[in-house]
């Protein structure tokens, strides 16, 4: 079997700190004081160092500092983390290195530090261009603060910037959503990447509780979809391509790191709760901060070696998230079995239902979600789960 991605590796560093938990957030994060943050960075460095040995042959093509709010850390801490990576890993000089930043936690000094550290991509959590909507989400910043951050970032030389936006917010109207998009598009220059998500109400979040108590009205499915379609229309008009269900980019500015997840490239996650996929084994660090600070190399939970069937399932339900779809040829190369043999019936049904289609992309035939399929992607994906492992 030919390993397409052998020798290439992505790194994810989880920074579980924020100023204050947002109402919709179900990620592993929370406020912490300066000493805890410093100790955590030390632990991260120890974990990076300790795990490096097994990765000597791998070229690291992307690094992603996610959270939480990584921009909350002092600039020097970020610098140290990147120094550690450079010291112990084979970091590709052209690697995409992203940090997530939230307005209200960023300043010129930090931005300058990040540049020095080699960070070349910024992902700014804006979510909405309207302060009332930001308040509903429990965000700590305003539109004005965002503008400041954006301007500072440009001044410090960042040109590869993503902006996160959320649709289907409580109280949002199609008009206000359109206006948010347009305000972002009218930035000078506009960002080269936009992630536009529909709000997902996750159990255990404060927003969920409010909804349960009847204090929050969610938008219905129809309104949600209208906004989604509108997003595609507006952004495509402005020159952005939708390359994944919720991700849009100017040509060549797709997020390589995230594409790695959907293409099942190997990645290692560092920090609490961080997940990894390495040589078809999935594993994850435990969620306890205390335990991690004490033994950063000793927090890995049970490993799960993916069976052939599980690999195929992932190939499909992750790969189909990309609008270009999956390549039947690629499936065959990866698993040594024709796609048709494993999934012929499911594909046929979904072609008939108008949820999947074959497209020619120049290099060969691709199987991809249709527009309707994008709306109902889970419905499609669930069908790609196998009842039993193929022989």
């Amino acid at each position: 079997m030919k390993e397409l991605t052998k020798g290439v590796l992505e790194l994810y560093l989880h920074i579980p700190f924020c100023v204050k938990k947002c109402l919709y957030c179900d990620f592993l994060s929370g406020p912490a004081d300066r000493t805890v943050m410093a100790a955590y960075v030390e632990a991260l460095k120890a974990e990076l160092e300790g795990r490096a040995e097994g990765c000597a042959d791998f070229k690291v093509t992307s690094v992603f500092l996610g959270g939480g709010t990584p921009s909350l850390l002092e600039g020097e801490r970020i610098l140290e983390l990147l120094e550690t990576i450079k010291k112990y890993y084979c970091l590709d000089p052209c690697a995409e290195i992203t940090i997530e930043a939230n307005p209200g936690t960023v300043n010129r000094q930090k931005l300058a530090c990040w540049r020095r550290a080699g960070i070349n991509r910024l992902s700014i959590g804006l979510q909405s261009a309207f302060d009332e909507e930001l308040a509903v989400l429990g965000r700590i910043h305003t539109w004005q603060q965002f503008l400041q951050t954006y301007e500072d970032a440009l001044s410090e030389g960042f040109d590869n910037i993503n902006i996160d936006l959320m649709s289907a917010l409580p109280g949002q109207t199609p008009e206000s959503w359109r206006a948010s998009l347009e305000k972002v598009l009218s930035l000078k220059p506009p960002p080269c990447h936009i992630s536009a998500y529909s709000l997902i109400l996750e159990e255990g979040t404060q927003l969920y509780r409010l909804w349960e108590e009847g204090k929050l009205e969610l938008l219905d499915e129809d309104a949600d979809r209208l906004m989604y379609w509108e997003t595609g229309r507006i952004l495509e008009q402005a020159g952005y391509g939708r390359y994944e269900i919720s991700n849009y980019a100017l040509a060549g500015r797709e997020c390589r790191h995230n594409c790695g997840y959907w293409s099942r490239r190997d990645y290692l996650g560092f920090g609490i709760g961080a997940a990894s996929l390495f040589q078809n084994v999935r594993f994850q660090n435990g969620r306890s901060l205390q335990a991690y600070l004490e033994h950063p190399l000793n927090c890995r939970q049970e490993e799960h070696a993916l069976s052939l069937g599980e690999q195929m399932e992932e190939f499909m339900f992750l790969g189909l998230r990309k609008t270009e779809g999956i390549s039947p040829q690629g499936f065959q190369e990866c698993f040594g079995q024709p796609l048709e043999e494993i999934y012929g019936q499911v594909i046929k049904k979904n072609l008939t239902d108008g949820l999947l289609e074959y497209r020619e992309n120049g290099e060969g035939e691709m199987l991809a979600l249709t527009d309707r399929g994008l709306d109902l992607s889970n419905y499609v994906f669930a069908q790609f789960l196998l009842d039993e492992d193929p022989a």
Partner: protein
Amino acid sequence: MDQSRIRNFCIIAHIDHGKSTLADRIIEKTGLLTSREMQNQVLDNMDLERERGITIKAQTVRTVYRAGDGEEYIFNLIDTPGHVDFNYEVSRSLAACDGAVLVVDAAQGIEAQTLANVYLALDHDLDVFPVINKIDLPSAEPQRVIEEIEDVIGLEAQDAPLISAKNGIGIEEVLEQIVTKIPAPVGDPDAPLQALIFDSVYDSYKGVIIFCRIMEGTVKKGTVIRLMATGARQEVVEVGYFGAGQFIPCQELSAGMVGYITASIKNVKDTAVGDTVTDDKNPCAEPLPGYKKVQSMVYCGLYPADGAKYPDLRDALEKLQLNDASLQYEPETSVALGFGFRCGFLGLLHLEVIQERLEREYNLDLVTTAPGVVYKVYKSNGEVIELTNPTNLPDPSEIEHMEEPIVTAEIMVTSEYIGSIMELCQERRGRYLGMEYIEGARALLKYELPLNEIIYDFFDALKSRSRGYASFDYDIKGYETSRLVKLDILINREEVDALSFIVHADSAYERGRRMCEKLKEEIPRHLFEIPIQAAVGGKIIARETVKAMRKDVLAKCYGGDITRKKKLLEKQKEGKKRMRQIGSVEIPQKAFMSVLKLDDD
């Protein structure tokens, strides 16, 4: 054993008035069991019975009591089922007794079942004496209740023991009155054998164990017995009496005694409750009066949720029937649900009990179709059909007329709720027969009601409209002509047989409309729009629409989430497996049961 020192009796009461607790105390005080050995409520020995606080099968226990007169008495306590569904069993249990202890709650006084049970006992010529229970409750009014018993029932109650079965107060007095007020049995041990079957259970080692009261004659090991109604014939293997929770063999059972017989009988169907056991070689002249074949009153379809479990369901029903001859079943096929069984029950409680036992004891996941009663369909060609499955209703053009079973119901209620209860009965097509005021603020309402109007949720409605104060009892009166129609449900324009039911023409529209609304909630969105329609005789009378699926998407899916997101997809796939495919529509199992809960407003 000297007949004069046997007392065969039962305890009768309205539900929750403390029948089982008193039975426990009697068993405890008569010394066969220590308190520690006693499970709570010894007589209710099925889990289900204990949970629901009702007795489903008759339980019997023999204890020995040393009375104030220094003599030892044998007490045979026959515990009777406590629900109207099991009225016939109750009547047979009563026929096995010589007297009854009537338990009345000191706070609540006489209730509908109190009356029904007393009248039933008096019909069987039993000597009944009252006991006032729960006298330790703050709201107890023993004197008022005593007067009520005397006024309403006409029983002497001035010397009724005032007890608290729960706290063991006054039990001794009850025991003494059992000796003095309940007559000893009579009967000639040398006469031809005549024994009444009041229950039977199946034991995998002994076969069927017959519970009986010997009226005349004697039975022992080796006697060849004949069951007069079913004709079954077998040699007796063992006779004995009932210890608490165990069978204790003895030499013989003679006139006046209560005990059991085993005779290698393989099927409880052969040992029908109410049948007479006699000596095959020296039979009695006549069977005991009162035997009747038990009729199922309520029918529904039972289907395994997982079609592959059909054989398991069949085995489970077979086993249950060994112990419960009143459970009827026969295989049937539904387009929507596949292979299953049409089952007949004594009533809705019986249905629920069986359903729960199948689910708990046999670990089966069931789909139940709407329960219905037995309708009589008179066809124009003179044929008469007893209809238990709505699907089998002939074409309306072939039907001359239809009849439905009617009950006479007695509802006891405090006067402030009379209005709302009358309204309820009116809604359920009740015919008002009359009302009697009983002792001040309470009234006994008499109605005739169609059985199919009370089998679902009448009892719940009654309770909720009277804040729990109304009590209810009914008897089957007979059949009456009625304007009945079959209501069909069409999902995506296909008729779903398992959802059809028979309803009165005047209620068809309302029921159809609610059915559609309910199903709209239950059926998940599909890729296409799904019309849900209710129809009578091909004419659509109500419609709802399940809109097409618009969105089923996880907006965000990155690194660590993948394992979690896959679990979501797995759950989604699992959910689909539990659906029933009707044409191109997938219907969740519970949608078929939703019709049972149409009236929760």
